């Protein structure tokens, strides 16, 4: 059985303006020790998916209206808050995007590490402190023992992210969810953080979900990729297969939008963008959500009437589209719809 199975997840936000269907159909599995990259543009629902897994969505106004999140066979959506608290940090850990604000500025770094250890592993103060030093060393923070008593404002952004990571792996979780872990950091630091994550993942045999909007990061770090658009999972495949043979028009557009540095005349060519905007998630239409921006949508009016379902096009490669690349017989793209 897979470590994590997300089945038909729908998470909606019930606001005064209407019901925002932030996650409206996400399915995937993740095996032990593997890395899943979730990509998509801002607002596509990737963070909400992660928070839904952790049960960290704000309970009013949000609600998981449908679906299951099976972790080691146990449906997390059925657990109460106390049970979820036992899972979080211990078996599933999460780190967030902005390290500058993700640590409590009024508590010492040491405290923020030991509190997890003492909570989940019942360690004594001294044992927790020792372990915290070890953790800091594991994430390559120099002079760990002294720095334990520092406050976050004495750490740089990159170092704080390392501390976050240290806190996340403290209890040896089986799954680490990293929500844009490097986005807020300098480019030079980014790579190091990603390397660190990979190092730790191997060392602790963790599964990882890496959420990002950066295709390059995904290419480097993921074993499998899930592409999300407008709250839905639109394509899922092994990383190689996705990059070599993308099926969904959106994925193609994403890859097409990547700057190709090795091409000629790269300085003169413009970056390709996807025209249009993602749909409003309050009351989205009963149709393919990418339709309005899809170059192939005009061919078949089912795109404007029926929501395509997720189907396994070939082994290990799932698509939610009426016009996956393999099924289009060489029809040229028409921009706009």
């Amino acid at each position, binding site marked *: 059985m897979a470590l994590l199975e997300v089945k038909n997840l729908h998470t909606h936000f019930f606001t005064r303006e209407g019901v925002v269907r932030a996650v409206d159909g996400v399915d995937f599995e993740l095996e032990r020790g593997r890395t899943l990259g979730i990509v998509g543009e801002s607002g596509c629902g990737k963070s909400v998916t992660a928070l839904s897994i952790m049960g*960290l969505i704000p309970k009013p106004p949000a609600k998981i209206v449908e679906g299951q999140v099976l972790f080691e066979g146990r449906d997390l959506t059925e657990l109460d808050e106390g049970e979820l608290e036992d899972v979080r940090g*211990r078996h599933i850990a999460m780190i*967030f995007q902005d390290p500058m*604000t993700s640590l*409590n*500025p*009024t508590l010492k770094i040491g405290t923020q590490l030991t*509190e997890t250890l003492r909570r*989940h592993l019942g360690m004594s103060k001294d044992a927790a402190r020792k372990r915290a030093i070890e953790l800091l060393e594991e994430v390559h923070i120099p002079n760990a023992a002294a720095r334990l008593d520092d406050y976050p404002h004495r750490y740089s952004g990159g170092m704080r992210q390392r501390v976050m990571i240290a*806190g996340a792996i403290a209890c040896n979780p089986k799954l680490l969810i990293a929500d844009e872990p490097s986005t807020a950091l300098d480019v030079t630091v980014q790579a190091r953080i990603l390397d660190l994550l990979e190092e730790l993942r191997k060392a602790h045999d963790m599964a990882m979900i890496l959420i990002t909007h950066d295709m390059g990061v995904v290419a480097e770090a993921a074993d499998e990729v899930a592409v999300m658009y407008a709250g839905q999972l639109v394509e899922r495949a092994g990383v190689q297969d996705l990059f070599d043979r993308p099926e969904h028009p959106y994925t193609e557009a994403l890859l097409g939008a990547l700057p190709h540095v090795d091409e000629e005349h790269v300085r003169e060519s413009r970056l390709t963008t996807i025209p249009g905007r993602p749909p409003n998630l309050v009351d989205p239409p009963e149709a393919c959500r990418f339709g309005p921006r899809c170059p192939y949508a005009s061919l078949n009016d089912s795109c404007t009437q029926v929501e395509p379902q997720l189907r396994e096009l070939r082994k290990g490669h799932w698509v939610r589209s009426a016009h996956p690349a393999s099924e289009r017989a060489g029809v040229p793209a028409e921009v706009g719809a």
Partner: protein
Amino acid sequence: MTKFVVRRLVWTIPVVLLVILLTFTMMKQIGGNPFRQTERAVPASIQRNLERKFGLDKPWYVQYAQYVRNVFTFDLGPSMVLRGRSVNAIVKEQFPRSIQLGGLAMLFALVVGVPLGAVAALKQNSTADYSAMVVSNVGFAVPSFLVATLLIYFVSLKWGLLPTSGWATWRHKILPPIALGLGPMAYFARLARGSMLETLQQDYVRTARAKGLRWRRVVVVHVLRNSLIPVVTAAGPFLGFLITGSFIIETIFAIPGIGRYYVVSVQARDLSVTMGLTVILALIIVVANLIVDILYGLLDPRTREARA
């Protein structure tokens, strides 16, 4: 930290001098005769005697110098109206009561207000939240003298539970602090609620939850502590206000503090008492603010280090 405190204390001296100057100037401006308290005119010879006795016949700069000297030698002179009593004696006897009243009112405001605001924030938009905010609004809008009179009417008169006035036993010390502290309580409740709501949105709270910490710990260690900072900052000036602004409550509850006599002394033109009390009250506000700043430093380590 010590350097910080010492520096602040040294700054108190120019503040005090300024207070003396301003008060002195204002009292001289409003004129009036401290020796004529009733409609009976004071015969000229007696007026002269009295002015000589209290040094009012000297030029203004001599009088001013005298006051400055008084303050710095801690001998504030005799009262011009309460004959036979010195300002020092008045302060020594009656001031502690005002401090008690202010302190209790502050205690009430914090002990009731902060949890009220916290509960409202934690249960945002629930019945608990709305009722807490209604209570808070009422407490804020209703003037303290009305609250005082209503409390006396119902609690003392109708239900006979507590005495109507005075400050003798612990029973006397319940209603007045409530009347005085109700407004600040409402303010603190709103402040605490707002502050907590904001803190609850912070990323580090999300991190704490993601670490699986028990909610109670998250609230107490991560949320409350950081939410208290704006409350503490507001509390300082309030403490000063509570001690100095207790005039109405002291009058209604017949509490023999200095708040009541402070206002009376201005009306009666009791210059020495007015001067002395103003300086003391100014000092209290300075000290209250200092205490707040110290607390702030303790609560927020970033400020602590910036000061060192």
